């Protein structure tokens, strides 16, 4: 477990800082803006009263969802996903391209240890970081849910919604690990991670803007939809399936490549 320990030691500070920022963002948004947001419902309702009743009724149904903890939580999810995606991509790129960047592949690969074992230990270290980070995020989510949501509470749904961050992060982690293993050279971990994270963010923005159904299949932020989880208690199966298959396929491809690739001469 030397590789596992080494990777954890090298990567935990960054992951911890990201987790703090992410949780801070969550707490800041909910504690700072949720009360004001809920209060403004009155103003919106007053305004809607001047519209035809049929329209107000149709819109009123959405109001209940919009002006709730879940609605606001799902709004913030775009940004939590962005931060989480960058963090997960950074972990994947960092761990799986470390020897490539520091030009010490031969050092690691000549150890009496199979490549699959090295890969698995790196994978385990990454998963440990992601899970620990999400444990903090979920705990914070649940505490905030208790503090700010009115009765009746549905903790199962809140937990499912919070878990969509972990699932989204896993997709990005797999993309990053794949890129790290297949790329000839990784010049900057943070640069590539930021690019991957914002690419996901832009796709999600484009999807929200256009509402084009097909686009959602290539939009990782929308594979596991937090608002759907909150209000219906499920993820949409076909998109969740795409996400899961993509994650697994990329990891398997990365594994196959990592255990077989030639080590470049220095």
């Amino acid at each position, binding site marked *: 477990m030397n590789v596992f320990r080494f990777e954890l030691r090298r990567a935990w500070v960054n992951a911890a800082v990201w987790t703090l920022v992410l949780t801070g*963002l969550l707490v800041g948004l909910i504690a700072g*803006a949720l009360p*004001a*947001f809920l209060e*403004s419902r009155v*103003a*919106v309702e007053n*305004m809607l009263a001047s519209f035809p009743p049929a329209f107000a009724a149709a819109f009123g149904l959405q109001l209940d969802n*919009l002006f709730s903890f879940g*609605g*606001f939580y799902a*709004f913030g999810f775009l*940004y939590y996903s*962005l*931060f989480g995606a*960058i963090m997960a991509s950074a972990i994947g790129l960092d761990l799986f391209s470390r020897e490539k960047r*520091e030009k010490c592949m031969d050092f690691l690969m000549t150890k009496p240890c199979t490549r699959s074992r090295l890969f698995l230990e790196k994978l385990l270290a990454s998963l440990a970081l992601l899970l620990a980070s999400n444990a903090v995020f979920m705990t914070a989510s649940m505490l905030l849910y208790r503090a700010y949501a009115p009765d009746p509470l549905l903790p199962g749904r809140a937990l499912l919604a919070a878990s969509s961050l972990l699932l989204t992060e896993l997709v990005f982690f797999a993309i990053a690990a794949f890129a790290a293993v297949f790329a000839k050279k990784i*010049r*900057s*971990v*943070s*640069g590539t*991670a*930021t*690019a991957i994270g*914002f*690419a996901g*963010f*832009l796709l999600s*923005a*484009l999807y*929200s*803007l*256009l*509402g*084009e159904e097909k*686009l959602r299949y290539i939009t990782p932020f929308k594979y596991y939809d937090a608002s759907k989880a909150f209000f219906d208690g499920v993820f949409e199966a076909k998109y969740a399936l795409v996400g899961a298959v993509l994650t697994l396929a990329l990891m398997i491809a990365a594994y196959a490549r990592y255990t077989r690739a030639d080590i470049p001469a220095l």
Partner: protein
Amino acid sequence: MNLFRKELKSGLKPFLFWSLGLFMFVFAGIVKSSAAMADGQFMTDLISKFPRIVVAVMGMANVDISQFGGFYAVLMQYIFVLTAVYAAHLGSGAVSRESIDKTYEFLFTKPRSRSFILAQKLLAAMVFLTLYACFNLLFSTLAVKQLALTGDYTALFLRFSIATWLIGLVFFSLAAAFAASFRASERGARAGNLAVLGAYALAVVYDLVEKPGVLRLLTPFRYFLNTEIIKTNVHPFYAVLCVALSAVFFVIAFDRFERRDLGAV
């Protein structure tokens, strides 16, 4: 000029890659825009009366999608972010690429001052940034031809492309200054990228609060508001501010780069 040419050559592939992303985003966004604009007028009227925070939560802050111009402005908000990420990449790359590739001993023993070399590299990167903004104009003009719209949007596209360029310039120079200030290249790159992310987070806060006030000065993503660009022009004060900021950052970058220890990693 050798260095300048070589920089252009080595930056071409990433540039084409980023341009492809820009192309897809702009093209898909514009060509499919008509569906999103249906009953936009009504929604815009309705939403303009909501409190700011509600509008932001509904994802409609800074938006007026009743007309094509408003819709395009929303697209451009995201193009700003895309450009900022690319610009940060260009800026830190120009400063620390030789350190990362461990070729600094080759280049910086040539009979040229460090400032000269850095200036050539930054200039080449600036060419890419400028081309990127031009491509935005080009792609937008081509994409809008696919729609049967009356009216000429070239001036609008031009104003947005200038705003894109100015925002890119700030992050480009900031990333260069960061990369020159940190000894480890990864730290410098990280600082540059975090600046983009932080500025974006501030932009979101700007949309959420009722009276943002001074917040606008802190995030380049809100220097050029959609409504201002559509109605009048790029805000002259903020345009000057962008140039001034980047001048300061460039001075820092050159100053630091002259004195720094050129080590690997």
